[in-house]
């Protein structure tokens, strides 16, 4: 698996992707995950607790941000650790969508001989707001 990092420098972007989140995406995630908190589908409830409106589940953002990593990794290794801090809400309008982009870069090669590395995720919405902080993925050989 060391070939994954061969020729790569710290800070190099390995993979990036962008998805469009709509209210439909939120309903789909609610059903798939079992998280039916109404702040993710009802503006009135979201506003009653001091939010601007309906927002994406933090775990939806965390989940979509790592999807490019697993797609890129294929069967060459597995995600052995993944952590994030939820720093900013991702508000999702009723009648359009919001683009969320994830950029994955090489942060540290942990054990060169075994091929484990730490990747840093930069996750932003279309207006440039960073929505996940301290977002790191460790990939390891199986």
């Amino acid at each position: 698996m060391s070939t994954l990092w061969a020729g790569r420098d710290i800070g190099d972007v390995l993979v990036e992707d962008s998805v469009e989140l709509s209210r439909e995406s939120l309903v789909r995630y609610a059903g798939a995950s079992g998280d039916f908190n109404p702040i993710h589908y009802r503006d009135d409830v979201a506003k009653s607790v001091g939010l601007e409106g309906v927002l994406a589940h933090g775990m939806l953002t965390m989940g979509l941000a790592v999807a490019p990593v697993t797609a890129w990794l294929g069967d060459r290794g597995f995600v052995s650790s993944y952590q994030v801090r939820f720093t900013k809400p991702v508000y999702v309008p009723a009648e359009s969508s919001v683009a969320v982009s994830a950029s994955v870069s090489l942060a540290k090669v942990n054990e060169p001989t075994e091929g484990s590395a730490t990747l840093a995720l930069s996750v932003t919405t279309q207006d440039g707001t960073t929505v996940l902080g301290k977002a790191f993925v460790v990939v390891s050989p199986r």
Partner: protein
Amino acid sequence: MSVNRELLDTVFEPTKPYVVGREKVREFASAVFATAPIHHDVDAAIAAGYSDVVAPPTFPIVIQEKALHQILSHPGAGINFSRVVHGDQKFEYQRPLVAGDEVVATLRVTKIQSLGGHTMLTSESTITTTAGEPVVVATSTLVIRGEEG
């Protein structure tokens, strides 16, 4: 209402066994835009060395949620659910979950901290197969926002 500090170091009963279903993995993968074939196609998963479709990395949240529910619904916990915000989340995996795994989660409260009127509650859910094989530890920090006024 304030968070009951006696929760610290409390270890809850293991959750009821949860069977990771193939269609659930596919449904969850689609919901998080995870298009890699190993999440959807059994043959691709087998070719990659797994016994069935592979759950995306954040899938264990579904199981952690069942463990967390034990705290949030605990009558003595003093937690008002409508004031709870997700602060941090971490997963540390021995291997990915795959369809067919039957797992339980055992939750321990590891930290309770006050910060500017809010309370941060950190818990660790250890997810193992019913045969006792450790698979993933899910660590979550919930921020319980202070009551105003």
